[in-house]
């Protein structure tokens, strides 16, 4: 790899990683915005999305990739709804620590359930290894093309949903003030359900793309969750565009950062950026949602 393509490839890797983080962060920030708590189990929606696809592509289903995606995402959406119904709805009014710990417990439960069923080893979807396509001196594999394309599609879909539809309007109202929205006669229940489904599906899509690019393992969710948090906080809670930009920022920072520091610290870059930005933004100190 000569010098110019070396740096260009690095930037490209940053964008690819950033797209994936953006998808994760958008789902996370949605729930944070509408329900005002951090869904620590969001990583497991990511991971289970990928494993559901694995499930439908393997025996006894044996479906091809494009067909298997539908039931996989459907199940992921259901998982999100189930999470809300069984764990978060009963404690909707509890204090932050309780919600956070319940989410942590859910995360541990789901993560180990995956390990229980599929083992701790890295799994692959089993596609044959193919050289990437050359593109201006850089290499992009098919899954990587998909990452960029799908992210753009999701961003467009999210935009249409949130800013051009009634449901989106309701969800934004909830995001601003849950109680006021209730009083105003907005169907909060429907909006909350919609938020969970969208959040879960975005997570699932992100998880599938990630797994297509780098294989599956039970820790894949939580390893990326932390970065999704960082992106969410950088972009501002409940702010979808902020999440998108935050994700891209972290992806780029990580990949460019390892040109200068050891790859072993790559995962720490997201944190450092987040803490620096948080410290520099005094109006965030209140811990309230700020838009």
């Amino acid at each position, binding site marked *: 790899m000569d010098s110019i393509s070396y740096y260009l490839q690095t930037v490209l890797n940053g964008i690819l990683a950033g797209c994936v983080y953006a998808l994760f962060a958008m789902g996370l920030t949605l729930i944070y915005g509408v329900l005002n708590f*951090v869904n620590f189990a969001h990583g497991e929606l990511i991971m289970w999305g990928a494993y559901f696809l694995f499930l439908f592509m393997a025996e006894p289903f044996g479906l091809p990739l494009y067909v298997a995606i539908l039931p996989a995402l459907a199940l992921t959406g259901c998982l999100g709804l189930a999470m809300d119904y069984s*764990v978060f709805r*009963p*404690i909707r009014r*509890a*204090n*932050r*620590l*309780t*919600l*956070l*710990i*319940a989410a*942590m*417990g*859910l*995360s*541990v*439960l*789901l*993560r*180990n*359930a995956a*390990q*229980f069923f599929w*083992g*701790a080893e890295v799994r692959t979807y089993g596609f044959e290894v193919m050289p990437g396509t050359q593109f201006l001196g850089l290499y992009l594999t098919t899954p990587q093309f998909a990452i960029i394309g799908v992210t753009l599609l999701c961003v467009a879909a999210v935009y249409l949903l949130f800013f051009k539809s009634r449901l989106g309007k309701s969800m934004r109202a909830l995001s601003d003030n849950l109680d006021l929205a209730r009083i105003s006669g907005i169907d909060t229940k429907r909006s909350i359900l919609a938020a969970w489904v969208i959040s879960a599906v975005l997570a699932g899509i992100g998880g599938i793309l990630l797994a297509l690019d780098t294989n599956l393992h039970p820790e894949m969710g*939580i390893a990326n969750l*932390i970065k999704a*948090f*960082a992106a969410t*906080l950088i972009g501002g809670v409940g702010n979808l565009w902020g999440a998108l930009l935050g994700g891209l920022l972290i992806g780029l920072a990580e990949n460019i950062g390892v040109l200068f520091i*050891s790859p*072993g*610290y790559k*995962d*720490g870059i997201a*944190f*450092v950026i*987040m*803490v620096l930005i*948080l*410290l520099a933004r005094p109006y*965030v*100190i*209140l*811990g309230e949602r700020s838009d």
Partner: protein
Amino acid sequence: MDLLLHLSVVIAIYAIFALSLNVEVGYTGLFNFGHVAFFAIGAYTSALLTLAGIPFIWSLPAALAMAGVCGFLLSIPALKLQGDYFGIATLGFGEILRMIFNNEVWLTKGPMGLPGIPRPEFFGFAFDTLPRYLALSSGFALLTFAILAFVVLSPFGRALKAVRDDETAAEILGKNAYRFKIKSFVIGSVFAGLAGVLWAHYATFIGPGDFTLTETILVLLIVVMGGKGTFLGPVVGAVVLIFFQESVRFLRLPPEWTRLLGPLQQMIFGLLLIVLMIFRPEGIIREKGGQR
């Protein structure tokens, strides 16, 4: 018999760890999700010093000091953040510290870990048998319990609770919330370091993989299940949870089962946390007049 002794040692160590977290989470309302970092700092400091030949009687206070100083340094910027942000920042600190331990091979031997950590010796008396080590760790556990009980029952402890329950009100009454939080954080860090020291010298081997988010979740579960904000709670939590976790480790099962045992055990922990938060968030021992 040996199994019982082993369990008791681990319970004593985790009781100290949980009591230390309780000061921060239970009494001061600080969501410290990186607490395992101070456990690790205590463990590594004492391990490295004793492996370099420095006797335990010096490595112990050095480790405690290190943990306390790091706690102090972290708390200054971190406590400027509130609630969730503080939680995630401390989580990040825990992870970054683990990365440091993993990458700086010249110092910590990275992922290979530090084997052969010596058992402590005081003036020629070595704590190298199981009963002796149990005496050592129980002794420290009782000491911790006494010191921390004294702290939380004192006016200082009441002030912490006031800060936890309503920071603005506490400030109006003249309490500098920020300073109180820092003190609470440092105390918690020092005792977490103590637990870490005891752990390192018991296990005789430590590596970065021993100090992950899983450990944080375990000690959080202990505190929350036992009853946060009470001083007996963490101890009860430690007894129940460690008993469950360690004794399962010692069952003799066919290998097809052991593969599933690990995740199954963790699944039960997760479920336990969820059920607790829904039905009894105060934990086994309820705090008097505490919040839900």
